[in-house]
């Protein structure tokens, strides 16, 4: 089976201008730094990492909501990296995004019907009865009552607003959906409703998801495979089952160890090892392995040589010098 979405050496850099007057200098911030990634049709790939690691930028660059600086994006076998606007438009139908903030992502002055209809109109639908019927179908699909169509975003709770955002993203019948922290802003008791809805829709419509989140528990629940990012690079990708049971990259291990445990009997004896320090600035990432400044297993080679993403004995792709040596 060939991947639905592929990234090869995908890079996004931002020019940051700083420094005092007359001593201005421009530095390149590598938000996404040479990422290779395949997303298979029908799967959910979870993408985790701490704030500022580049996971949202990666998600948006994959659907060219942000233009990449380098590398290649393949969608269903076609190179879409350099397509012009006209050629890109039919592709856009097939790739959509659900945003984190259900309060900021909906125009407060548009009715729910207009919000869901907007992408359809942009892609050539007339605002006629047939289009309205389609909007009604979308409302049903995401579990909103038909009377929601004539209302405005402020009349809905956070969970309902997120349903509107999902309806809008799915109106064009996309194949690939980037879910950018879709439940982080919701109350805990409402999160499960949205996670279940996303899973139901995936089964019903055969969707492929890139699920971006910082909550490792939610990612574990929804994903088939999980990718871990640190300072613009992917440090580990593996099947969900094995990555949580046997994380190989020290950063993945630390992330999992930092998640609070609910039931006392699931807790290890005493305190677990904590990751010291904080994520370094992406403007000036450490040489060699970016993680070496916080890594408990750091070796001399880590400070000078950058580890490459390689497949290990148990089938994880890991970028770490520890797993390279036999």
């Amino acid at each position, binding site marked *: 089976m060939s991947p639905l979405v592929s990234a090869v050496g995908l890079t996004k850099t931002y020019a940051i201008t700083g420094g005092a007057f007359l001593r201005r200098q421009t530095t390149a911030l590598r938000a996404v730094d040479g990422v290779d990634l395949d997303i298979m049709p029908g799967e959910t790939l979870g993408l985790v990492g701490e704030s500022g690691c580049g996971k949202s930028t990666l998600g948006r660059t994959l659907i060219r909501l942000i233009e990449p600086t380098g590398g290649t994006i393949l969608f269903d076998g076609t190179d879409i990296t350099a397509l012009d606007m006209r050629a890109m438009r039919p592709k856009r139908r097939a790739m959509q995004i659900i945003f984190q903030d259900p309060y900021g992502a909906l125009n407060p002055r548009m009715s729910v019907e207009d919000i869901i209809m907007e992408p359809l109109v942009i892609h050539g639908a007339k605002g006629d009865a047939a289009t309205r019927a389609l909007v009604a179908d979308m409302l049903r699909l995401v579990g909103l009552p038909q009377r929601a169509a004539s209302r405005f975003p402020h009349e809905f709770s956070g969970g309902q607003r997120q349903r509107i955002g999902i309806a809008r993203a799915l109106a064009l019948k996309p194949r690939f959906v980037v879910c950018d922290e879709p439940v982080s802003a919701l*109350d805990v008791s409402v999160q*499960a409703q949205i996670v279940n809805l996303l899973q139901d829709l995936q089964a019903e419509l055969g969707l492929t998801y890139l699920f971006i989140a910082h909550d490792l528990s939610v990612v574990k629940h929804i994903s088939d495979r999980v990718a871990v990012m640190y300072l613009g690079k992917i440090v580990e990708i593996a099947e969900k089952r094995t990555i949580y049971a046997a994380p190989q990259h020290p950063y993945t291990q630390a992330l999992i160890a930092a998640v609070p445990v609910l039931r006392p009997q699931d807790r290890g004896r005493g305190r677990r090892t904590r990751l010291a320090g904080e994520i370094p600035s992406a403007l000036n990432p450490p040489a060699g392995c970016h993680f070496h400044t916080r890594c408990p297993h750091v070796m001399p080679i880590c400070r000078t040589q950058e580890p490459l993403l390689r497949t290990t004995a148990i089938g994880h792709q890991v970028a770490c010098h520890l797993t390279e040596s036999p």
Partner: protein
Amino acid sequence: MSLLELRGLTTAFQTGRGEISAIEDVSFDLDEGEILGIVGESGSGKSVTALTIMGLLPQPPARIAAGSVRFAGEELTTASPGRMEKIRGAGISMVFQEPMTSLNPVFTIGEQIMETVRAHDRMSARAQRDRAIEMLDRVGIPSATERLNDYPHQLSGGQRQRVMIAMSLACRPKLLIADEPTTALDVTIQAQVLDLLMDLRDELGMAIIVITHNMGVIAEVADRVLVMYAGRIVEQSPAANLFDAPQHPYTKGLLACVPTLEQDRHRLIAIPGALPEPTRRPPGCCFAPRCTYCIEACHAAVPPLIVQRDDRAVACIRADELVAS
């Protein structure tokens, strides 16, 4: 005598649509050196509870409609503003969720900590500075002497939260209230800050109230837990028992609906519906419209918080049946 005693505390707000109770009939005790977790979703009243204790709600629109807050034997709801200023800082201090906006961007962190010290204790500039260094050191800020001259923007989110904790410790309070102290932080930094809170309790013998929506944070640090829903305490329990045997249907639902790293579930068990708006709280038990165990009687009257065995209490008229089943 407990360090902090709340009895029947009810705080109401004057709004355009009449007076609305943000919290109703909140009672609990807190002992010295104890960590109490208050867990609830948005609008549950957990922050209003904290701000009422601190006397930080502007009155009006807020009004303490009923109940009392006793801190070290002293009634706070009727204390003068001057007296409350003395208590805030030296008696009770608070750490807020937003380490980005709680610090003044135009003063160095050293000046801000020394200002707090100066407001409560009369001491020389040198002694103030020493205290600030001591506190920064205490909360794990490396090379504290140099960092004293840093401005907030020069620090990361985790370090700013450490500075906030250092400020709140500067006058050696007996009680620290931490309102969502780790919500804005990454998970590895959250773990560091939670460890710091527990160390401070162990070394300084402070009591701590940790307010959060995250059950995991509660499980990690709390000795005892209050679960709040729509302005009321619905369950109270030692932390060790709560996670194994939740008694209130809302607590059960909260624990069942979050995925955990330890368990695999095919499907999450969602709580239907959404939290009621404070203006549209249903009569009777506020959770009844979302509750799978709801019976006719649930809509009739607000269920009282009834004390059970093992230092637990639950506000559900069907609690006995549900525990037995």
